[in-house]
């Protein structure tokens, strides 16, 4: 029989735990994770990226980071190509269009190899969300760039993103990746003054951004979520154990709006009232002159001009194409002639305002058919292809004007 071992159990105060080794393990572990996270923040782990579909976007409780998006753009865009980033909302994301039919693919085909089109639009996004932040962060790396964004008529745009996508702006802003833009700075200060309850969450975001800049944990765990296993439940998937599936196994769930199976989903009677209220609601910004002409109120005109002017830093305006989205003729035909004239005027005024403050802008959709739309605003692939056909010459003209094709 062997004699009892005097070193077992270990005589340390913490039993089996050696405090120095334990702390060393923590420091080493965090260091390795930070290094891996940093490496991943410069790696494109979305091969064949088409767009942020619902399982890899905030809808699915997945929050792509600014670095992750920049890495996608770097992987897709070769040196010498003009980087065309598509931002904006679900319309430009391509809701009702399958990944293989999405309008940005058509735009890429039409523009050709000298351009690289990347779709960074998000559902419910604004012109200054996601894609806009990426484009601004990459302005030095890709000086030959064009940003395409969209907005509804007579809608003011916040210069620092909005809603669930503002975190991307803060990542760029607190990370020192954005331009100095005094008007935007003033707007942020004003926002914090008007909404004091937002000061604490923004401070928390700022601290979180600092920590993340050092430890890169968002990039690391996003990669784990995409490649290895789900680390957060998705609101679009059943709970345990389903959410543990890596996000890469989920196909892009967007359906083809031209498929007859979805015909009843396009213009449901249940949403007719709401849709018509949205269209007619624009009249609150207008008054009608005795001649019958609809005129945008002075206040709305100045607000729209001010917000549009401040939306992007001055040097980036000329490379930002603003699309004002039209509505489906299915609903337009239900308006009176007067109302239709008013709606038409809202688009003309909005485009004119964006142009006046320095952006290339255009509206679309007035010559589209009801089949080109999947609902009031979203386009089917047919509408998407028409949009691409209208946008491509504008992008080429912008590239020429900006001297990108020399």
């Amino acid at each position, binding site marked *: 029989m062997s004699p009892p*071992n005097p070193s077992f159990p*270990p005589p340390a105060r913490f039993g089996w735990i050696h405090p120095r080794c334990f702390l060393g*393990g923590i420091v080493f572990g965090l260091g390795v994770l930070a290094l891996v996270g940093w490496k991943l923040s410069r790696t494109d782990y979305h091969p064949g990226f088409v767009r942020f579909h619902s399982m890899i976007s905030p809808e699915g409780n997945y929050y792509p980071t600014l670095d992750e998006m920049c890495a996608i753009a770097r992987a897709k865009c070769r040196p010498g190509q003009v980087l065309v980033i598509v931002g904006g909302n679900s319309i430009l994301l391509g*809701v009702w269009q399958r990944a293989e039919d999405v309008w940005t693919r058509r735009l890429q085909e039409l523009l050709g190899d000298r351009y690289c089109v990347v779709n960074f639009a998000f559902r419910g996004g604004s012109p200054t969300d996601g894609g806009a932040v990426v484009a601004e962060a990459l302005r030095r790396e890709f000086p030959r760039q064009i940003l395409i964004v969209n907005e509804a008529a007579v809608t003011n745009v916040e210069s620092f993103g909005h809603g669930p996508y503002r975190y991307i702006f803060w990542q760029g802003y607190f990370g020192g990746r954005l331009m100095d833009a005094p008007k935007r700075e003033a707007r942020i200060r004003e926002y914090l003054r008007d909404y004091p309850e937002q000061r604490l969450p923004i401070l928390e975001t700022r601290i979180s951004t600092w920590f993340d800049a050092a430890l890169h944990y968002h990039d690391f*765990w996003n990669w784990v979520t995409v490649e290895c296993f789900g*680390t957060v439940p998705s*609101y679009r998937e059943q709970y345990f154990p389903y959410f543990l599936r890596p996000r890469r196994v989920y196909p892009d769930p967007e359906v083809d709006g031209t498929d007859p199976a979805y015909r009843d989903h396009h213009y449901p009677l249940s949403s007719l009232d709401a849709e018509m209220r949205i269209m007619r609601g624009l009249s609150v910004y207008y008054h009608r002159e005795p001649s019958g002409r609809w005129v945008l109120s002075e206040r709305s005109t100045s607000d729209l001009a001010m917000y549009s002017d401040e939306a992007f830093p001055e040097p980036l305006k000329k490379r930002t194409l603003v699309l004002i989205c039209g509505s489906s003729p299915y609903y337009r035909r239900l308006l009176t002639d007067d109302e239709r004239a008013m709606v038409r005027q809202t688009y003309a005024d909005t485009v004119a305002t964006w142009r006046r403050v320095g952006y290339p802008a255009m509206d679309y959709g007035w010559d589209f058919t009801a089949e080109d739309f999947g609902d009031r605003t979203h386009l089917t692939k047919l509408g998407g292809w028409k949009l691409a056909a209208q946008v491509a010459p504008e992008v080429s003209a912008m590239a020429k004007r900006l001297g990108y094709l020399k």
Partner: protein
Amino acid sequence: MRRLKALLARVPAPCIRFLAAAVSFLAGLAVALMFDYLLYRIGLPSKPFIYVSF
């Protein structure tokens, strides 16, 4: 457990010290991993984003 204790009791003292250091280090790594994940989860919004379009 008793068998494990008996087995460990037979291990020479220097090995036990090394084993304890290794276990401590691994425990530190595990805590680092959990802390990293905690930071990530804290950084995610607590309110779900549910997209509704009209």
